[in-house]
């Protein structure tokens, strides 16, 4: 047995760095906090790699993996039954996730030293990054659902802080607020779901909840509300939390706005790690979903499919490169949700589960790379818009090649990483749900189109008027690009079906030629269309968008979903619910309190005349009172 208790250090190092950088950072030179943060996360990164090596390879392969809980301490003890633990749980998905989180976090830390150079609040930035890393690791290593919830909120808070990093920019403040409110609203559902679940099962613990065939849910199955069983409600509400964090339709509106944050933050939080927390949560609770609430799982699949399609369509029309990437993130997370939704449990049936985790892994690599590449472009161009870019391949060769690798990976062109994972997802969908398969198949083509539209617009085409010549990013920004580029190119060769499976037993996959070839085909088709339209400057795209008319404009305006939200909140909720409640509060609740105060004041004005300042008056009243008291006592004692 290997002793894994050192894994507690993986989240604790970023925590310690957060505390020290947060408290003392202002006294240090900016670079010092950057280096400390990077080195700390680097240590976590190597520890995670070491953990993964020990967990996956040092034990005998071929047999099932076991859940290991090296650390689990009592944190809060309310009663005998209600106790909250904090600890570290190692199983294939959490080990995979710590590797993903620390890798991307390490790259983002390293990259930020160059990207954020000279920014005001450099130390603050690094302390928030460490806080985020700590909380994200807390989520993935959680031993019980309540620990996940606590860290889940911490992740949300650090995301809020980082989106609003440029807090003197009103749009950033609004975006931070939006992200926080939307995810917080979703987390309300998550909390209610947790409470329902743990009320009936009597435990938070994953080691008890995730046993297949456990009898804990017998109590919940009997309860029903509005025609659905208690467990369905609980799991659907928990999925609501997951959908909020993972920006599934219709809670996706915060993610594109979250791009107001610094670009490495977008890469780390809003592309690679935090937004896949929802996928992770569903995967973590997968046995419950599969055995107790299969309806919810199907629902998850449809939500994912719809989101991935709609986000891919919106991504085709956006001009802000970070927004294109944001919608692309939505779309890819939709893929992961679809894969979970169509998955079965155990062996070959669990292909979707494996594919989802696989795609999470490869997506983290290539999407972080796309964002960091976009960051190095924005860093030199000082603009987010495609019209200010073009022909950059001559000036930024490293960024160009790594970006290209990521584009090929996301389009599913072999042998890049995305090909393998996307192919598994399509295969899994094909097995169990044809509708979702076709949705995802079309989305794959759209993905390839919008990403190459982005690519050709940035790196090919005509040079716009550059104020100064664009230059390649410094070394500490290109090293992460190269590293992630290698990850995006070769990450697909990781044998996930041997490592991360639904029942923790390895299985062998067959090659689905019938799906692989068409999916590569549609990827290449998308690429080709983008090539024709955007490689050379021409007026074809404009003509097509004019022809499409309302279809194009509604897509450009993101199907007016933001406007619908604004209408619902401002016009309906504010006017018909919030305003009457505010009136009630202002007039009835406050009115009562103010009334009490006013009456008191009025009465005291009336009776203050008794205090006249006339000494003899006081004395008279006093003597009269004493005499009356004396008479009364005498009378009551019987002296008539």
């Amino acid at each position, binding site marked *: 047995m290997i002793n894994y208790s050192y894994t507690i250090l993986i989240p604790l190092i970023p925590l310690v760095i957060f505390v020290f950088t947060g408290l003392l950072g202002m006294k240090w030179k900016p670079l010092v906090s950057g280096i400390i943060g990077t080195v700390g996360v680097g240590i976590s990164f190597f520890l995670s790699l070491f953990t993964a090596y020990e967990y996956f390879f040092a034990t005998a392969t071929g047999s099932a993996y076991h859940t290991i809980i090296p650390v689990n301490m009592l944190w809060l003890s309310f009663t005998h039954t209600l106790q909250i633990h904090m600890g570290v749980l190692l199983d294939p998905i959490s080990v995979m996730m710590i590797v993903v989180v620390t890798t991307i976090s390490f790259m983002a830390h390293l990259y930020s030293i160059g990207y954020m150079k000279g920014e005001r609040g450099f130390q603050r930035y690094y302390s928030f990054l460490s806080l985020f890393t700590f909380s994200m690791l807390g989520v993935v290593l959680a031993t019980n659902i309540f620990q996940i919830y606590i860290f889940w909120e911490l992740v949300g808070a650090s995301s809020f802080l980082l989106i609003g990093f440029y807090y003197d920019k009103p749009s950033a403040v609004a975006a931070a607020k939006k992200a926080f409110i939307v995810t917080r609203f979703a987390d309300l559902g998550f909390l209610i779901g947790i409470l329902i679940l743990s009320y009936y099962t009597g435990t938070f613990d994953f080691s008890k909840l995730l046993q297949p065939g456990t009898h804990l849910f017998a109590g919940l199955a009997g309860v029903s509300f509005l025609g659905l069983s208690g467990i369905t409600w609980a799991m659907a509400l928990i999925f609501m939390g997951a959908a909020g964090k993972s920006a599934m339709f219709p809670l996706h509106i915060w993610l594109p706005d979250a791009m107001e944050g610094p670009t490495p933050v977008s890469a780390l939080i809003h592309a690679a790690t935090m937004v896949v927390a929802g996928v992770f949560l569903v995967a973590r609770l997968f046995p419950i979903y599969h055995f107790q609430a299969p309806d919810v799982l199907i629902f998850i699949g449809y939500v994912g499919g719809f989101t991935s399609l709609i986000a891919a369509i919106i991504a085709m029309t956006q001009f802000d490169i970070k927004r294109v990437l944001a919608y692309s993130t939505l779309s890819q997370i939709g893929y992961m949700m679809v894969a979970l939704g169509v998955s079965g449990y155990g062996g070959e049936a669990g292909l979707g589960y494996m594919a989802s985790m696989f795609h999470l892994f490869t997506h983290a690599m290539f999407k972080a790379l796309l964002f960091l590449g976009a960051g190095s472009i924005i860093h030199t161009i000082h603009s987010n818009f495609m019209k200010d870019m073009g022909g950059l391949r001559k000036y930024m060769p490293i960024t160009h090649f790594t970006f290209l690798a990521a584009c090929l990976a996301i389009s599913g062109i072999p042998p890049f990483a995305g090909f393998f994972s996307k192919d598994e997802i399509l295969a899994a969908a094909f097995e169990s749900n044809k509708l979702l398969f076709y949705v995802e198949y079309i989305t794959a083509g759209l993905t390839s189109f919008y990403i190459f539209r982005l690519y050709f617009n940035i790196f090919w085409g005509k040079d716009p008027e550059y104020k100064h010549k664009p230059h390649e990013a410094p070394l500490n920004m290109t090293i992460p690009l190269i590293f992630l580029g290698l990850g995006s190119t070769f990450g697909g060769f990781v044998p996930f079906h041997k490592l991360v499976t639904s029942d923790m037993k390895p299985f062998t996959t067959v090659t689905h030629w019938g799906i692989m070839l068409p999916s590569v085909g549609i990827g290449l088709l998308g690429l080709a269309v983008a090539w024709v339209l955007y490689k050379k400057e021409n007026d074809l795209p404009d003509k097509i968008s004019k022809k499409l008319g309302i279809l194009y404009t509604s897509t450009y305006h993101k199907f007016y979903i933001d406007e619908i939200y604004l209408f619902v909140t401002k016009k309906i909720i504010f006017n018909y619910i919030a305003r009457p409640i505010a009136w009630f509060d202002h007039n009835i609740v406050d009115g009562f309190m103010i009334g009490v105060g006013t009456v008191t004041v009025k009465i005291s004005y009336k009776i*203050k005349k008794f*205090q*006249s*300042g*006339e*000494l*003899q008056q006081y*004395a*008279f009243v006093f*003597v009269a009172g004493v005499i009356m008291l004396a008479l009364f006592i005498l009378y009551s004692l019987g002296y008539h």
Partner: protein
Amino acid sequence: MIQGISIYHFLIVSTLMFFIGIAGFIIRQNLITILLSVELILNSVVINFLVFNRYLYPDQLQGHFFALFIIGVAAAEASVAIALIINIYRRIHNIESDNVNEMKY
């Protein structure tokens, strides 16, 4: 026990003094007179103490000590009161109690 004088005589005198003092305190305007009235009240109390001690517990001395204390306290009080009255006189050049009614609300 004083020959031929009963306790009632003393008590009547002290009661009269007490109520004269009260009446003076309430009616008179001059602060000095008010002070004198207070002294009257105190002295009537002193008489009560002495008389009860003498007639009810002739072999004990508590009443006498109380009387001494009250005389001492009365002297202190008189000095404070006169100091106040002098200060009032310096400010408003008169010691009518009707003019000293600023301490209100």
